[in-house]
Each structure stands twice: as C-alpha cells, then as structure tokens.
C-alpha cells in the first residue's frame, strides 16, 4: 500500500493559504470581479427606441411586453422573467437595449423588477 504523503503536505500548505472564498454579500463585496461583458440587468434608452418590437418577438422567455405610450409602441422589460441571454440587445437595430453588469436582481416588490 502506498503512503499518502503528498496529500498531507498539500493539506498542511492549505492551512497557511489565503481563503479561496469571498465573504459575500455582507463583507468584501468590492472583491467580486465582474468582467466586462457580463450579461446583467437590462438597460433601456427610450430616446433611441423606434418601436420595431423585434426584441419582443425574439425573447425566449416572453419577458418583453409591448405597450403604447405617447410616442408610439415601446417595450417593457419584466426582469423577473428575464433569462439574461441578451438576444434582445443583439437584435436591436438602434442599440436602445444594453445589458449592464449589474447582476444583483433581487427585490421585495415586483415593480422593482420591471425596466421601463
């Protein structure tokens, strides 16, 4: 039978190592590395939107509702249904939809999870 020597060495080394985890969410929140291009909460620019409704037609989660406002048709984003695939931002012809790096989409009220 072989002696498990190298495993003990590694275990001892780990005693003096820095901790691999991050104390999220109450401490060390700034330590979280969020890369450029993470698909997070949708941001919408009403000025750029031309009301083509393409976003609502490609959305796989049916998270985009089309409503009428004083300037014509426009989308409303139901973040609580969103799967963060970013397909709407990809097809938007005027780049009115972007996906921000904000990922902490938790709320106590449903209205907070709707992007207008």
């Amino acid at each position: 039978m072989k002696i498990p020597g190298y495993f003990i060495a590694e275990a001892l080394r780990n005693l003096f190592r820095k901790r691999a985890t991050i104390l999220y969410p109450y401490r060390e929140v700034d330590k979280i590395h969020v890369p450029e291009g993470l698909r997070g909460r949708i941001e919408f620019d009403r000025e750029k939107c031309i009301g083509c409704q393409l976003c609502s037609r490609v959305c796989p989660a049916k998270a985009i509702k089309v409503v009428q406002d004083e300037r014509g048709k426009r989308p409303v984003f139901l973040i609580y249904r969103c799967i963060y695939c970013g397909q709407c931002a990809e097809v938007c012809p005027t780049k009115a939809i972007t996906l921000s790096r904000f990922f902490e989409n938790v709320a106590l009220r449903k209205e907070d999870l709707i992007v207008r």
Partner: protein
Amino acid sequence: MSFEIPIGPQHPIHVEPIMLRLKVEGELIVDVDVDVSYLHRGIEKGLEVRPYIQGLYLAERICGICNCAHSLCYCLNVEQLLGKEAPPRARYLRLIVEELSRMHSHLLWLGHYFHTLGFETLFMYFWRDRERVMDMLELITGNRVTTAYNTIGGVRRDLPQEAEAKLRRALDYLEERMKYYEKVVDGEPTILARTQGVGVLKSSEAISLGTVGPHLRASGIRHDVRLDDPYSGHDEVPFNVVTHDGCDCYARVKVRLGEVVESINMIRYALDHLPSGEYRLKIPPLFKAPEGESLARVEAPRGELVHYSISNGGTNPYRYKVRTPTLANIFSVVYMLKSRGDREVYIADVPPILGGIDPCICCTARVLVTDEARRKRRILTLTDLRKYSQGGRRVRG
C-alpha cells in the same frame, strides 16, 4: 430472503431525482429497477412551438452543465437545415468554449465523485480549481454557467482582448493541479479501495449495452465523436482519445482526469492557431428553414449527444428529438449493479457505480412514461410503442 430497498427519488447520493429499487439478499444486490422519469419537462414539445432563435435558448437549458454541447448541437442542426457552415474562427472559438465547459464538467464530476466516496477534502480542492474555469467562461462568454455563446451561424462575441493571456495563465495553473491530482488518485488508499474492481463493465458488455463517452472509453474502447465525426474544427486540432483498460470506477476517474489535460492542450493549440476573420454569419433573427431533416452529433462532457430535427419549411421545427448521453449510459448502471457469478455488488457500491457514469437526470427524463387518469403507471411494450408510433388507435391499458 430478499428485501427491496428504495434509493431515491431523493437521496444524499443523488444530485437529481432518480429512483433505484434494489432487491437485496443480505448485503448483495440481486436485482435493480431504475426510474428516471421524475424530471420530465416537455422540452421537445417546447422546441416545436418556438421559432428557431428562441429554441436555441431552450435547448441550452436541457442541461445546465453541458449547456454548451446542447446549444452547439442545436446550432449545427439548424445550420445543416439552412445549408450553411460557421466560419473558421467561429469553429475554433466554439471549440475553445466547448473544451472549457468539458473541463468544468469533469472537474465538477471529479469533485462530486469524491464527495460521494466521502472524500470531502478532495471535493473542495476540485471545486476550488473549477472556479478558475468558471471565471474564464464568464470572461469569454458573459456568464458562468449558461453561456449563451453559440448562435446559429457562429458565436455571439469575439474573444476579448485580455482573455488570451488570462486563459493561458489559468491553463498553466490547472495543468499543474491535474498532475498533482493524478498522483493523489494513484496513491490514496481510500480512493483505490472504493473504486478499483468496483462496477466492472468489460469492453464487449459496454458495446452491447450501448454506452457512450468517458464511460465507454474507460472500458478500453477508442470512441469519440470528436474523432469519428469532427464537427467543429476537431479535424484540425490534434488531440488524443484518452482510454483506460481498467473497465472499473477507477478507470472512469482516470479517463476524466486525462481528458481535462487533453482539453487544456486543445485550447492551447486553438489559441495558437486561431484563424482571423468573421466570427459569425449574418443570419436574420427570425427566419424560415427549408424543408428537410438534419441530425447532429456532439461529444458532450458525458458522451455522445444526438439532436435530430425535421423541418416542414416553417419558422419552428416540426419535430425535435434529443438523445442525451445519460440515457445511453443508464442501462449499463442496471447491469453493473446486479451481482452475477463471481461478481458481487454490495449496497455500499451503489454511489460509486451510479456516480461513475456522471448521471444527469434532467437531461434524460424526456421519455414518456404514461400516467393514466386512474393514476396508474404502466410501461409500454415494444409492440404497443410500434402501434402508437404508426398513428393507429390509442393503446388501451
């Protein structure tokens, strides 16, 4: 005197609901009945009622861990229907992300496997190292797990500027770690005692039971879809098919360890020889696919994954069929769990044997098990199924 012991649908050794009804005589298992139908989600039907672009994201969600393989297989299928092929750069980028997700899946499996054996320390080490892979996936694709990277006609984003250097650093780190893990697995008496000679599946049995993937390669068969049917630049990127002649659970661990090292080398080669040019074709988001049928095969982390689709010229597939690797491998579990001849299988061997195939039940539960209005479950026989499929009358129970 024999007893029946149910393991599941909820049990600490299972990560997902699966029912094993073990018929035991003392400690020996004499018969097994497997039920995988706790997670039927109707995804195939869902794919039939969605436009192709929406189906992509649904197909990706068939399995969380091999989401990359599922979306790639879906894309290959639709591209085949459209008669288009992804540009060379896209094929290489697909390969990089696919291999990264294979590494992530194998590291997850290795960690979880040692967890089922009760080796928690190694579980923690593997999962800590897996985080490096997850960070790379996040950097390249924009998400840790559900990558949404492949799209019809290529990939959705190019490799970011700073990604290559970071990726190489992570690969160097992982290569060193994998060498260390090889030593641990070879030298730890705990692991050897629980895996060697457990769940033996000889080459001929593996073939006759139709197993796929690392499970088949651990029985000494050199079979890999990447080699047999190169689908995304695998004919250009050299790699070895890792096999092991052990035919037991130890061999399955060794094969997956070896495959992680192979994936590291493949990604390195793909980064060195990354072609320039377009990374996706210009295909409108909502389109109609021409009439026809297509079949695509992908080597998912767990084995051969098959997607088949029929198009009738509309915006949605007319029929979509998915055959996942776990469905192919689950039969061998039943075989391995039965004691026969001089091969004795004990109840304590259930976790290593079931875990050895890397079961993914949510992938598998797509087969219809009839649940009648009388709340009586029954299994269709082959004759019944044939009648059913030939569109005749409804089979009566």
